[in-house]
């Protein structure tokens, strides 16, 4: 049904989406937690930086990544010179681009899940002898769990559809950085490749739909769970 080319593209896309979700999640939980908590100096700045990729055109985000982390970029140059690390136009670049664009979505979902937890549970937990860390792991994390899961689903879905930042920062190299979105874009312009495009579009739609259904289900569960 699928050609080996298509299968390798689907596998790479799922690999990128899964890896970037796993990288995004702890970061998003940490950011969601501190942004849902008390005010601190620079909170608005942190919130702004996290959310920029949500409003800026993805190509701009990709360009900025290239300027910062590319081989000749501000940080990228230093990394290459001192440690020989290359971050652009490879698998790492796919992950970085994906994490940056999906982070705001995950953070928003997780932050609101933490905000929904009644702070009185923290009082109760403290009165029973729990420290702040104990309260985080035993009260906040389980109560926000459906929100965290739905944040993860959103990050996964965003990563699946990622195009602009990826093409700017990771390129469109078949077998290396070409995901479903990039493959569809490339093949759209080649006559006779319509069937391949259609098959990948359908696969893409199915995965997206499943992700949205999962997210909606978890959101409903979250409300019921916390009541």
């Amino acid at each position: 049904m699928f050609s080996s080319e298509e299968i390798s593209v689907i596998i790479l896309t799922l690999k990128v989406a899964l890896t970037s979700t796993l990288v995004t999640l702890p970061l998003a939980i940490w950011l969601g937690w501190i942004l849902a908590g008390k005010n601190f100096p620079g909170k608005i700045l942190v919130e702004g930086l996290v959310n920029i990729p949500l409003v800026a055109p993805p190509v701009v985000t990709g360009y900025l990544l290239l300027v910062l982390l590319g081989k000749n970029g501000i940080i990228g140059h230093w990394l290459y010179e001192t440690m020989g690390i290359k971050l652009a136009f490879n698998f790492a670049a796919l992950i970085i681009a994906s994490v940056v664009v999906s982070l705001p979505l995950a953070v928003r979902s997780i932050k609101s899940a933490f905000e929904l937890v009644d702070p009185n549970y923290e009082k109760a937990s403290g009165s029973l002898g729990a420290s702040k860390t104990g309260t985080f792991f035993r009260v906040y994390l389980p109560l926000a769990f459906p929100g965290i899961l739905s944040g993860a689903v959103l990050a996964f879905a965003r990563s699946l559809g990622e195009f602009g930042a990826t093409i700017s920062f990771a390129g469109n190299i078949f077998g290396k950085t070409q995901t479903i979105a990039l493959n569809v874009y490339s093949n759209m312009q080649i006559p006779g490749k319509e069937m391949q495009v259609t098959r990948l579009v359908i696969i893409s739609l199915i995965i997206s739909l499943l992700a949205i259904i999962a997210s909606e289900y978890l959101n409903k569960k979250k409300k019921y769970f916390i009541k």
Partner: protein
Amino acid sequence: MIIRFESVEHKLGDNHFKYDFRTDSSITGVFGHSGAGKTTLFNLLSGVDTPKKGKIKLDTETLVDIDKNKIIPGKNRNIGYVFQENHLFPHLSVKKNLLFSKPYIKNKIKYISFNDVVSLLDIIPILNKKPRQLSGGERQRVAIGRALLSQPRLLLLDEPFSNVDCSKRKKIISYLLGINNHFQIPMVIISHHLEDILKLTRNIVIIENGRSTVSDDIFNIIKNGEKPELIRPKKFQNTFEVTFYDYSKTESAYNVYFNQNIEIKISNHSRLLNETLEQGTRIQLSLRPIDIALSVEKNEGTSIQNQLNGKVKQIIHNSEAIFCVVDCGFELFVEISQGIINDLYLHEGQEIYCQIKANDFDVVHVYDKVDLEKENKSLSHNHSEEIKVAVKS
């Protein structure tokens, strides 16, 4: 246990609070209208909040001394706090809620066992349920159990009767007396229902407009003529402990004794009483001052089963009511009118009979026989003031 608030001041928004009192009762009631500052008092004592000024002490330990910059964090104070809204963790079963404090009590003396708590509070049938599946009364009991299992040295209960209906209220009062007696744990209880507090204790702290105004025995407060507007006669209760002697089938009354010599007949249809009660079982009773009639001589041919002989100790006039304090071996507050004073020529020192119907007594709690044995044992080994207070009051 002695609780001391010394010139404690606090501010929340535009509200100022000032607490200055001392209490050493086994059960202390904190009474005041809604919004008077009762919960703030608990938050300061438990460490949820820190005052701006003053000292808070438990026995000889200083919990807070603002001048010396000493503040013991709430989690190290070892005070159990039952919140007004329970705050049971919704993601955990009743059992897991109860055991929440387990990892944090490693270095504490464990004097309260899980099995004792679940059986005393009748929690066993609901152990696997989630909090949202429980009724108000059940939730309250689980919250009390959860706080107890953190092995606290003091238990704070904020409005434990507010989310439960009237019949459940009586049940919670009975549970609290059972816990206090069984574990010998001191308690402070907030309520804006004076009659509930008085079924548990006579020692109260009154909070008005953010200030602690009185801390004393309710009888002394009335005798001193303080706060008549707060202590309305219908809300007032005579509360005392008696010992069960036998059940009389012919009179369908339970014969009980106060101090082994004053016989009282009670016929309350309480589920707490039954014919199989063991002799010597202690029973906590309450009686409203408006349910007692006075007569100068013993009446013959009356359906009233109790005619307690005593002497008028004091007549108290205040803006809300007139009380006659009668000493019948124990003090009884009787609500009277000026007409009665005139008709009976009531005066201090006068001999009088208190007429009380057998079913006017309210049975607040029937103590476990087991508790009694345990208590006698502990009394014979420990003559501390605190335990005596717990038994007598």
